[in-house]
């Protein structure tokens, strides 16, 4: 299984490639039958072709990902990353996301779960509201 440094580097590399609009480079980090839940609770994107469409839409919306802290697990399978994501078209949308990537022995991402809710998204340039003031 990929070691912890590899897994943390993958999380950063995914953000770097997406920020550079390198969709094919970002796709290369995942297996052909990847399951991509973004967000968790909605129907997943399954397979690389579907993920390509998802990522193309993201870069068309000028996505910018700013990963913060990444942690791992003792089983060699996971990296978990807290990330701030901004989309700039058609409006400025900001997201606070904690995502899990599950790896296979091939070092590729097999399953992605992006945890964010309606209360983790803001429209416009303002900072996301504090949890206590949210109404959802």
């Amino acid at each position, binding site marked *: 299984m990929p070691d*912890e*440094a590899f897994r*943390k580097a993958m999380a950063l590399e995914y953000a770097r490639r997406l920020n550079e609009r390198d969709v094919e480079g970002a796709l290369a980090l995942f297996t052909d039958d990847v399951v991509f839940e973004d*967000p*968790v*609770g*909605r129907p997943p994107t399954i397979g690389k072709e579907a993920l390509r469409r998802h990522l193309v839409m993201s870069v068309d919306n000028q996505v910018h990902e700013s990963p913060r*802290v990444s*942690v*791992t*697990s*003792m*089983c*060699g*399978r*996971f990296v*978990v990353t*807290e990330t701030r994501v901004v989309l700039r078209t058609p409006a400025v949308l900001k997201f*606070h*996301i*904690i995502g*899990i990537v599950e790896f296979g022995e091939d070092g590729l991402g097999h399953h992605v779960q992006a*945890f*964010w*809710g*309606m*209360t*983790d998204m803001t429209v416009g340039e303002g900072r996301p509201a504090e*949890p*206590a003031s*949210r*109404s*959802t």
Partner: protein
Amino acid sequence: MGTGLTSERDRKELALEHCRRVNAGDVDALLELYGEDVVFADPVGGDEGAGLRALRAHYEEAFAAGLRVEPGEPVAAQDGAHTFVPVTSVTDYAPLGPRFAERGWLVPPDDPSGKRLRRTCMLLLRVDETGLIREARTFWGRSDVDVID
């Protein structure tokens, strides 16, 4: 992983309340947040357990070691069931540190006296429709634990 009906705000508040009760060191109050058949892992891929009795033993040991936690800002999934919160935890070095060292999870200090353990974690909680925690998974690896003064 099941689904529930709790609101995002309630789940985020639950995650923060969980951290407050940990810092209060009151294991009975903490366990009130859990369902009887809870399953937990701390860390994921390491120690796993099930049931309130096992969870009580887990936290009683941590509280005896002076566990303190500092939560970050939680997020909530759109499945009605999950919340995820970054947490930094600190305990005395003993008794957990020597056990972690035996398992190869950290390099023991030359002199452990006065040392503490700091872990950078992500705590994933799954709650049921009544708002009780049914699953708690704490993610951290070898590169997320430090021995500090």
